[in-house]
């Protein structure tokens, strides 16, 4: 049993960190967040060149064929750098959905261009009321035409095709098709843009059923938690550095226990989120029976920790933490958006409860 990273995993993580630090430093994050879409063509080409856009997908579709743990490590580093743009929407979300639900033919058509860096995508899930329970979806396609409205669709404006989760299956829609309108929603997270997408008799191509969707959403959720861990780590690093440097009463504020204890709790919450994220990724990779619960546990913990780490980080910065110029609020905004995405901690606690209270699939003695 080995919970440390293998050498090749360390190398991947390290090179991703260097890559993002070089290609997407905070000045670039701030430049991109001021743009309409947060998307940069050159950065995307470089991501593809690294193989990141095909990281977990089969080689027959142009992917790299690595595992979920590698994906989580990559997402952690992307989160640490607060990389804007449609990477999450395209790769661990849309890519995982296609990979899970589509036929070989459809995977060739939709997954291959993603792996090759030629296409960006996203998945339209929520409707009015924002219920993450997929049974509650109302939109369905009749005669291959979709009508209705999807909300909180990430990066829809730069997607080459949008996947729509409908009652009766998963559909691919061309954003330039008739009857479609894509309107930005003013979200708190400036680095990941969200949209309201309306369909009126919009032609749609069915690529699969919803049966295998939960597996894909588990991958996306675990990837998101990985990204959240990176955001927490960066917030912690920035905060500790500031606490060492900032002086009040003639001493670095990091010398005061009230400040140290905030930092210690940030560390505990970050490390605990990381343990949960890595385990969830491993459990998905190995298809262990409790993989889905492991994902929920990770999302429960990281959803709350992402927020509290940010709270403490801002508090330790004092007035500086409340300024626009300080980077901590940018991570804090992302953390809030991620907290709600794919179900917040309340949603996932109920999911855990259903498994451990109602079904007793994970008895106390199963360990």
């Amino acid at each position, binding site marked *: 049993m080995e919970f*440390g990273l293998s050498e090749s995993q360390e190398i991947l993580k390290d090179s991703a960190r260097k890559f993002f630090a070089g290609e997407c430093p905070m000045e670039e994050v701030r430049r991109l967040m001021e743009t309409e879409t947060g998307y940069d063509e050159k950065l995307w080409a470089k991501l593809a060149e690294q193989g990141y856009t095909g990281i977990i997908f089969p080689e027959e579709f142009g992917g790299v064929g690595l595992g979920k743990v590698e994906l989580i490590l990559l997402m952690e580093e992307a989160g640490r750098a607060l990389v804007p743009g449609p990477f999450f929407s395209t790769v661990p979300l849309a890519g995982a959905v296609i990979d899970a639900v589509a036929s070989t033919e459809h995977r060739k058509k939709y997954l291959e261009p993603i792996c090759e860096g030629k296409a960006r995508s996203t998945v339209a899930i929520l409707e009015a009321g924002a219920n993450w329970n997929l049974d509650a979806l109302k939109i369905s396609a009749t005669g291959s035409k979709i009508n209705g409205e999807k909300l909180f669709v990430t990066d829809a404006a730069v997607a080459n095709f949008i996947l729509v989760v409908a009652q009766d299956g998963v559909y691919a829609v061309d954003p330039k098709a008739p009857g479609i309108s894509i309107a930005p929603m003013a979200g708190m997270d400036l680095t990941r843009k969200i949209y309201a997408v309306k369909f009126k008799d919009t032609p749609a191509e069915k690529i699969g059923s919803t049966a295998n969707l939960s597996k894909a959403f588990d991958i996306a959720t675990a990837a998101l938690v990985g990204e959240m861990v990176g955001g927490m780590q960066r917030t912690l690093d920035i905060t500790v550095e500031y606490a060492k440097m900032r002086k009040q009463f003639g001493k670095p504020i990091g*010398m005061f226990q009230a400040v140290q204890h905030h930092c210690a709790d940030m560390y505990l919450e970050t490390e605990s989120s990381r343990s949960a994220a890595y385990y969830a990724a491993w459990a998905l990779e190995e298809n262990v029976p409790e993989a889905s619960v492991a994902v929920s546990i990770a999302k429960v913990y990281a959803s709350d920790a992402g927020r509290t780490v940010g709270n403490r980080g801002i508090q330790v910065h004092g007035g500086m933490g409340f300024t626009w110029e300080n980077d901590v609020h940018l991570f804090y905004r992302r953390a809030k958006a991620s907290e709600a995405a794919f179900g917040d901690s309340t949603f996932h*606690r109920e999911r855990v409860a259903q498994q451990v*209270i109602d079904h007793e699939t994970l008895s*106390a003695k199963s*360990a």
Partner: protein
Amino acid sequence: MDLNLTADEKLFRDELRSWLAANAPKDWPAWQNKPLEESYPYLRAWQRKLYEAGWAAVSWPKEFGGRSASLMQQSIFWEEMARAEAPPMANSLGLGLIGPTIIAYGTEAQKKRFVPKILSAEEIWCQGFSEPNAGSDLANLQTAAVLDGDHYIVNGQKVWTSYGWIGDWCEVVTRTDSAAAKHKGLTVLLVDMKTPGVEVRPLKQMTGESEFNEIFFRDVRVPKENVLGKVNDGWNVAISTLMYERGSYGARLHLIFKRSIGRLIELSKKFQRNGKPASEDLIVRQKLAQCYAEIEIMRLNQMRAFSRMTATGVPGPEGSIQKLFWSELNQRLQQIAQEILGPYGQLLGDDPYAVDNGAWSYGYLRTRGNTIEAGTSEVQRNIIGHFVLGLPRSY
């Protein structure tokens, strides 16, 4: 990263599992709620049995009667012990903390003299660290040891000594140089508790029991050869013991917690809230699920810490997040139990209406000690702040 057991680990697990199936006593639950004074011979006999089969201290090097088990094997050991509902071992401080410290710092003669009897539970060990004026500020301890020919003469008082009442030997941290800086003038002595001048008094705690003792030393003569490590280097020896304490504890706890949450889930189906089983109350469900999630994360943190320790070879300051995590989690778990049980939660073990023989009222009170013993939560946060995050020392 591969969380599957290796072939060696499986072999280790299977061997232990079948040994426990054949040898672990089945009547432990009946003993469990008896006072320790009554059950102690039972626990001694159990450790002796483990010792004879080579299972008493799997983490110890083979040459000292252990199995040189890896950290993962140690974790498997505790999992299997919990799975078999096996009793704890009598000499837990000797096996977990003091034995490893003697193996690390002791002379050849000391290792030969003390280590085998720790393993066999022939000699029970306790730990004389804290004093009335040296709790979190351990280095402020004042128990004095003055060299007089071949002996140190020890005078002073220790508190919060677990197993003091049954201890044959005690690892005592003393001050041998009062002129030196407070961390510098300390020396660890191995003290025979039967030496004249040693007096042990029970310390009654808020649960009503006396797990701990006060020990008074009045002109106690300790032979010079019982210095552990170097004279005036006692701080490093003591810290090494404390690291074992923080590092190893969590390994066995997650199974105990998992059993508690399992039991709590059962109880939540029996106890009513707003006219339906508490297990159907959305808020109770949220709390149980949160607790379950945290217990699982505690296990995962522990496994990650083990992998790091395997790489570095020694328990490090990361042990502090484990201590912080489990102690605060245990308090939350007990509070949830109280919420589920309602008025029944307060009933003590001797009440005929008590649930689980009063385990939950006891647990509620006992866990207040968890964030204090073995380094308070505040001290753990200081350790993380300074030693892990590199913030300047606050004291």
